[in-house]
């Protein structure tokens, strides 16, 4: 197996860096609502060098231009993105001068790409093997038999189950974590010199991410391929990269060895990224009487066939935060649906201020509805794109309190102040707001109802770390001022540490660990909580190997 994957000891190609990007400039044409289309600069004067067999991490928030730079090494621009300046030297020649024909020859041969969502990046109509060997056959790096043999060896290398036969499956027949590894195998199959990894583990659960990360790292080391590793998660990139390049707004902030960047960042922005998760939150002691109690709730989809909640019992205390953590499919969001009445429980009850809440949403009073509000992960789809911020926040005021005219406008302005946005936004449409601002408007909308509980369903998961931190701080401040309780659903344990008073760990529909934060996060742990905690990437070189070794339980989805 090792033979088929190893590279020749002496590279026949010329010396010098594999990839040498000089003064890259990339522009895109944007069509802002209500304005004339204009060109914006996405990447401005960025230069980088990558030696053979080395891994360079590109890191930054969304809009920093990391993916754009990564794709430029293949001469590719998404949508209306165009490379307008600079040189991209790959194996010593400028790929911008090769024309469309030249680009096609290098794509899939010299440079391969691993996308963020392998589930979307695989063609649902073809078997995995046909897609894995496609580039190798196209570029003639081997016969079909040879390519398939190499693919199977790569499947083994990447610890995929049943490597001999997994290629016969269709993409929908394997899990997300497995697909991500198959995609890595696909990239390695045509023996490229460089692979662009574009957030390859971001869409995965933490418990799955760690395995995929380890598999990718091994594959990079054993095949000797060079890589551009794009991510917004510094802890992840610290595990796989030799060097790290920090980008912001399309410009280079800092470039250095991995150890230097995470231990001794020279730029202020880099230090902000490194220290991003550290919000100190003092846990509040649970009160005597919870205002909302979920007792022995069992809920199912498909008329009782698929049980997604099993005998769940949790309490929420006034003005406190209960965090619900677990991987996807563990029943976190279903718990929220049961509490809000969207999915009536089959068994068990939900009590609110001492009385039983009706199971079904339709049977609840307007007052009950007002008391329980929700904020969602995708702020932009949770708002009507054709309503202004003022209308969106004003709607619950009209609906629950019958506020009109000046009175309503005053309250809307007040709420905008609370979310630190100011009145200038009252006439804006959601499309004119940034991701963080959209989520703030959603928070204001839920606060407008003066609820006693806000259910936050992965509200920071789609945001950049620094922006997410701002949202968390805001939620904590608002809790102080308004004495509102949160049910905070997340898969991100770092977030949990910063906001929770008590924690419920969910696994396959059951609460496996529940109590005050300090207690839940103190050993001894049950196996699942241990896996969950040990899977959260830490900004420390060598963490990955240590974590893999120390695990007591296998993660699902592999």
């Amino acid at each position, binding site marked *: *197996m090792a033979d088929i994957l190893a590279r020749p000891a002496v590279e026949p190609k010329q010396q010098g860096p594999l990839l040498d990007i000089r003064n890259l400039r990339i522009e895109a044409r944007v069509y802002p609502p209500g304005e004339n289309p204009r060109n914006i600069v996405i990447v401005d004067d960025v230069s980088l060098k990558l030696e053979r067999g080395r891994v360079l991490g590109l890191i930054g928030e969304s809009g920093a231009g990391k993916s754009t730079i990564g794709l430029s090494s*293949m001469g*590719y621009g*998404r949508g209306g993105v165009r490379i307008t300046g600079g040189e991209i030297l790959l194996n010593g020649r400028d790929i911008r001068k090769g024309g469309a024909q030249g*680009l*096609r*020859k*290098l*794509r*899939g*041969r010299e440079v*391969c*790409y691993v*996308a963020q*969502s392998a589930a*979307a*990046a*695989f*063609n*649902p*109509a*073809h078997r995995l093997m046909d*897609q894995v060997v*496609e*580039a190798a056959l*196209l*570029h003639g790096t081997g016969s079909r038999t040879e390519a398939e043999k190499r693919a199977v060896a790569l499947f*083994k*290398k990447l*610890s995929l*189950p049943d490597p001999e036969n997994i290629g016969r*499956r*269709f993409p*929908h*027949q394997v899990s997300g974590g497995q697909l991500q590894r198959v995609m890595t195998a696909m990239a390695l199959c045509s023996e490229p010199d460089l692979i662009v990894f574009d957030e390859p583990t971001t869409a995965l659960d933490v418990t799955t991410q760690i*395995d995929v990360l*380890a*598999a990718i790292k*091994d594959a990079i080391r054993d095949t000797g391929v060079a890589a551009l590793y794009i991510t917004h998660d510094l802890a992840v990139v610290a595990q796989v990269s030799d060097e790290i390049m920090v980008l912001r707004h399309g410009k280079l902030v800092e470039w250095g060895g991995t150890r230097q960047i995470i231990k001794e960042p020279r730029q202020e922005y880099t230090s902000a990224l490194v220290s991003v998760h550290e919000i100190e939150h003092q846990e509040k002691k649970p009160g005597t009487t919870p205002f909302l109690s979920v007792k022995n709730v069992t809920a199912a989809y*498909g008329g009782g*066939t*698929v*049980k997604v909640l*099993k005998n769940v019992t949790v309490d929420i205390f006034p003005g406190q935060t209960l965090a619900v953590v677990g991987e996807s499919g563990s029943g976190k969001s279903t718990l929220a649906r049961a509490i809000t009445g969207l999915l009536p429980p089959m068994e068990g009850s939900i009590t609110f201020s001492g009385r039983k809440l009706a199971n079904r949403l339709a049977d609840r009073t307007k007052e009950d509805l007002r008391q329980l509000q929700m904020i969602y992960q995708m702020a932009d789809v949770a708002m009507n794109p054709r309503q202004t911020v003022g209308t969106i926040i004003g709607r619950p005021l009209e609906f629950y309190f019958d506020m009109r005219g000046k009175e309503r406008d005053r309250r809307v302005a007040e709420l905008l102040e609370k979310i630190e946005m100011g009145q200038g936004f009252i006439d804006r449409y959601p499309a004119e707001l940034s991701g963080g601002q959209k989520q703030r408007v959603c928070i204001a909308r839920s606060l407008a109802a003066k609820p006693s509980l806000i259910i936050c369903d992965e509200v920071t998961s789609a945001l950049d770390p620094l922006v997410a931190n701002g949202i968390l701080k805001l939620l904590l401040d608002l809790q102080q001022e308004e004495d509102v309780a949160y049910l905070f659903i997340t898969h991100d344990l770092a977030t949990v540490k910063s906001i929770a008073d008590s924690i419920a760990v969910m*696994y*396959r529909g*059951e609460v*496996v660990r529940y109590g005050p934060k300090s207690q839940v996060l103190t050993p001894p742990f*049950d*196996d*699942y909580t241990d896996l969950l905690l040990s899977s959260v990437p830490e900004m420390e070189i060598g963490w990955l190997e240590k974590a*893999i070794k120390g*695990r*007591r*339980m*296998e993660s*699902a989805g*592999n």
Partner: protein
Amino acid sequence: MSTESPSTAAPLRTAGLTSDKPTRPRGAHPVLTLVAQRVALGLLLLFAVSVLIFAGTQILPGDVAQAILGQSATAQSLANLREELGLNDPAIVRYFRWLGGVLTGDLGTALSSGQNIASSLLPRLWNTLFLAFWAAIVSIPLAVLLGLIAVRYRNGAVDKAISGLALASTSLPEFFIGYLLVFFFAVKWQWFPAISTVYEGMPFLDRMQAIALPATALTLVVLAHMMRMTRAAILNVMQSAYIETAELKGLSAFDIIRKHAFPNAVAPIINVVMLNLAFLVVGVVVVEVIFVYPGMGQYLVDHVSKRDVPVVQAVGLIFAAVYIGLNILADVAGILTNPRLRHPR
């Protein structure tokens, strides 16, 4: 990490955690169930249509006996004929008698000619299917190919030319296209006959020459719709992430469309193709009349003008059966081309 890594070992089960995964019911492959459902639904629909057709012809004013015997008939002969035809029975009995006949291949007797409907209709159905077949053989591959080319050169001159011509040919009414074809190919250049006479035992090539013009007219009518839908369906798929994957493998633009976009756009394309096939059979009335082609359309028009209710019923039922049958085919093809249904987890 060696190949004996923990991730290949069986997952550890923690105490207290149950794992009752939803189990798939054993037995028939889900695709078979789905297909059987569609076919059953189609048959039910056809049954409902037969009720509607029968009820519709009952509501129409007029008396069949009167229609056969004419104004001068005596009351006695009318009564006798009604008795003979079973017109005095309740509607339900007559409906099932009619349905029973249809199921055994007896479509009744034409009032105007007294001939057996089934035997005079069969050769005409054959003629219509023959014309539809050749129009389909030309138009479907042409439409799909033009659609692919339009996507390849989307928003360019080629795309615009294809779309423009196709739209122009759809916007023109079919009788106008028909007369244009007759004017140029039959009258001016005299390549093809203006009247598409066919008869039993006609040599194949003569027959093909006879249907050249009506088949061309039909092709032009259905081409644009199929082409535009093919283009739209593929363009829709072209937004997918896996198209980018294909592009980044270095595939050429046409290979991307053919290998990666087209297979995922097949279901909507089949749907529109089937709709147009149905039109080729049931919508040919005008074209058949223009070219005096002895098919179902001609037959229907003739008998509508003679108020020959049994013939109208029979033709209506056949048209409905063709329509429903092709739509079932489209549904089944849609199911079969979906890998998620074909290969469940």
